[in-house]
């Protein structure tokens, strides 16, 4: 029987209240969102906070809105809500691809987008998806709010830039102007339905006259720094979006990631996955953007 150790519990009634509680209790306090990572860790005594600050009552952090040329997602948005959001799917197909394969429908009902990102598990699917989309995280603290690039948010396994007295409040994704043709996708290989990835890749590509004008490639669970395949992105920039270049991007991504052998698979297999998934997910993103170079779109 797994039971968390004794803990105190505070229910936050507003962002300001949550921040005040975090300031009062210090680093031994932990934010409780969906609890679908934190509670299992408490049950295993891998986490033993002294106080939980429950933010589930902060329903104003539960939203998916378009504000000017940005999609804004509140931290407390449940996975299921993101999956169901037509607005999110219309602009960022990658988010629906990723949400469809995160855990199972019941876990998705309660686990939150922000909790996923703050957990910073190297296998967390949304971290790579938001890194590919070059999103921005909004963090509130005692001194006000600050913005951090999704690519600078994770500082290591289970580590983020969010300080003990801070709260992630929302994620912002830039919506590019219509004349830039763009598409995005996410592909994951897991051992069974609902499981964490053995490896996964997400891509977002923008084209100008068949040339890659901008590209983001995210990698999950394979030891990519900040969940990003930076060298493969650099290679593709300014090149034609053709099969040969996609395959090369896959090879470069595989060369530069650092997967480890674990119960989900051996490192060389994961590297193979990165090569294949990167090329395939780029292809999928491109076909949503209007096709590969040299082909009718």
């Amino acid at each position, binding site marked *: *029987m*797994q*039971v*968390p*150790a*004794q*803990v*105190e*519990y505070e*229910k936050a009634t507003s962002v300001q209240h949550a921040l005040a509680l975090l300031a009062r209790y210090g680093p031994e306090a932990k934010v*409780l969102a969906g*609890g*679908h990572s934190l*509670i*299992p860790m*408490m*049950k295993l005594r891998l986490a033993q906070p002294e106080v*939980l600050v*429950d933010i*589930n009552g902060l329903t104003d952090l539960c939203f998916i809105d378009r504000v000017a040329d940005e999609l804004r997602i509140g931290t407390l948005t449940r996975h*299921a809500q993101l999956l169901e959001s037509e607005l999110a799917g219309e602009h960022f197909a990658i988010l629906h691809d990723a949400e469809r394969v995160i*855990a*199972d*429908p*019941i*876990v998705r*009902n*309660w686990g939150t987008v922000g909790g996923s990102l703050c957990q910073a598990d190297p296998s967390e699917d949304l971290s790579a998806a938001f890194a590919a989309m070059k999103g921005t995280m909004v963090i509130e603290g005692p001194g006000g709010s600050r913005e951090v690039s999704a690519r600078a948010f994770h500082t290591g396994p289970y580590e983020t830039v969010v300080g003990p007295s801070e709260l992630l409040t929302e994620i912002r994704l830039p919506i590019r102007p219509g004349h830039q043709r763009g598409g995005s996708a996410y592909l994951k290989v897991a051992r069974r*339905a*609902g499981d964490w990835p053995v490896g996964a890749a997400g891509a977002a590509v923008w084209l100008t006259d068949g040339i890659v004008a901008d590209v983001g490639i995210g990698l999950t669970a394979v030891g990519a720094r900040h969940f990003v395949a930076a060298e493969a992105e650099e290679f593709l920039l300014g090149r034609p979006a053709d099969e040969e270049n996609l395959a090369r991007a896959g090879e470069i991504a595989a060369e530069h990631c650092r997967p480890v052998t674990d119960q989900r698979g051996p490192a060389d297999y994961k590297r193979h996955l990165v090569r294949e998934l990167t090329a395939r997910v780029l292809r999928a993103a491109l076909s949503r953007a209007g096709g590969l170079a040299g082909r009718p779109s």
Partner: protein
Amino acid sequence: MKLTLTVNGTEYARTIEPRLLLIHFLRDELGLTGSHWGCDTSNCGACVVWLDETPVKSCTVLAAMTDGRRVTTVEGLARNGVLDPVQEGFSACHGLQCGFCTPGMMMTARWLLDRNPNPTAAEVREAISGQICRCTGYENIVRSVLWAAGNDGNDGNEGNDGNDGSDDDGRD
């Protein structure tokens, strides 16, 4: 801490330890043992109950988090002594063997049918994909839910496939 919540329409107030998991609160504090406690690791779905309008895995929710909210368990599925069509379906289509997974399966099935009254077999499988059954091979669970879909809107006593006890196949 003091916890006040509504379970199956009845309000309860209890003093609990904040670390108490919802599944243990329901079973041990309230004696509602219909919800089962299986894997303890959010993988099997035997513990699925509704928190307000959505099914959650109650082994991964603190009872404290339900303060001021509504919880519905399998004991709350039947209304005024009339079984829910989902329950009728599991009976009519032999949707269980040992019954351990059944409460969670039924809570998810009811949620699915409320949102999607005419699901395909694939949609039923997707809905229960976070829940494990070690007995049935899922086939009869899917059949049961589809049966319920075809019989929703009845008062639950009709269209139960003639299963009035006369076709005794030892199921009881």
